[in-house]
């Protein structure tokens, strides 16, 4: 019995570690490994769409600074909100972000990805430049990754710029527009987020 429990503990430990999705701490290699892992998952025909989504979610939770993105996208309104409301927003944003991300990625078709360069902007930020190689279905795409490196051992993605267009900024301006059209009522944004999460 003891041996069985020991084996189970070992198995759980191995499973947890194999799913922790930790990559190299060098931002350039980090992106190479992370995207390589995501592409491998997405192009694996033996995995169901739901399982792919779960795996992509796990990769995102471990390697994207969702908390900072949620605050950035809320803009100046965040300074006027109570702590409880802010917490509720963060929870809703996380669900919205993950659903939106998996929905965008699970239809992925096989494309070649290359990391071109990395530029350390400051102690806390490195920009990694990459590209998706031109294919018959789409022209070449340049992608710039904003990597937060305050903890050098654990880099986190904060933004993606596709051909110079920032995903975080687009999201922020979308939220700002919803708030502006509704007298900065955060509940309207909450209901729109809930509507998206539940659809």
């Amino acid at each position, binding site marked *: 019995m003891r041996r069985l429990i020991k084996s189970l503990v070992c198995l759980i430990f191995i499973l947890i570690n194999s799913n922790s999705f930790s990559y190299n701490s060098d931002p350039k290699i980090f992106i190479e490994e992370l995207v390589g892992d995501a592409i491998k998952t997405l192009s694996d025909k033996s995995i169901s769409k739901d399982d792919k989504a779960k795996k992509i979610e796990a990769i995102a939770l471990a390697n994207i600074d969702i908390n900072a993105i949620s605050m950035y996208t809320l803009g100046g309104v965040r300074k006027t909100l109570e702590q409880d409301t802010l917490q509720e927003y963060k929870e809703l944003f996380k669900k919205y972000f993950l659903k939106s991300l998996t*929905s965008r990625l699970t239809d992925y078709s096989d494309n070649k990805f290359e990391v071109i360069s990395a530029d350390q902007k400051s102690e806390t930020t490195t920009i990694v430049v990459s590209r998706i190689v031109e294919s018959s279905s789409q*022209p070449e795409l340049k992608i710039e990754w904003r990597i937060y490196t305050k903890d050098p051992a654990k880099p986190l993605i*904060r*933004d993606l710029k596709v051909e110079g*267009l*920032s995903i975080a900024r*687009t999201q922020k301006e979308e939220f*700002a527009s919803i708030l502006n059209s509704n007298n900065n009522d955060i509940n309207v944004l909450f209901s729109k987020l809930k509507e998206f999460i539940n659809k």
Partner: protein
Amino acid sequence: MSIKKYIIITLASVFILSTNLKAETECFEKVSRGIFKFNQSFDKVILRPIAAGYKKLPKSIQNGTGNFTSNIATLLTVPNHILQGQWSLAGQSSASFLINSSVGVLGFANPAKKLGLKNQQEDVGQTLGAYGFNGGCYFVMPILGPTTIRDSLGMIADTFVDPFSHITLREHEIFSVSGSNIDYFSVQGATAIDFRADNMSNLDNLEKNTLDMYSAIKSLYLQSREKKIGNTFSSEDDDEWSQFNK
């Protein structure tokens, strides 16, 4: 009206209208949202189905169409490079046009790209932006889509600066080349279909995942114009992100 008078009036209007307004400001949001809805319906019923059909054509035809329309757009790019003092880029675009129009069989092939010649597209709106004119307020035009005061006036000015417009829209003969309105609108139509087809999955994805498509398109349009005016790939927004450093 002479071209000189038109340019002076355009510049004066842009200056007056854009000094106090940033491009993020809406000119008349309710009307723009209405037009945006109309444009979405137009896209759903007409443009998207045509683009979907176009995407089914052999890749060589799609590439040829894209090359042909972008080669014609070079005629507008060259004078705008010159107006912005970008002599090297003006030279590269001119060489690209000459090579593609001759060796590239009227621009259907793009041998200039293989030679490493840059051919980024420029218009009068970008030139005005490079001179420091703000976008002015943002609005949506029927069929033509998102724009700003500066860019819409620039779009009218484009037809005076662009030799292709002179030949086709105004039916002037340049170097024994002449054309008609139909040629102009056919090329504009082909450009729109080619663009829509290239962005088929991107726009479908955006529509599926956005909470407010109108403001997402507005943000993407304004970012794209900023990038084109600055001729930069990245913008600096470190200050705001640094607030979230723990």
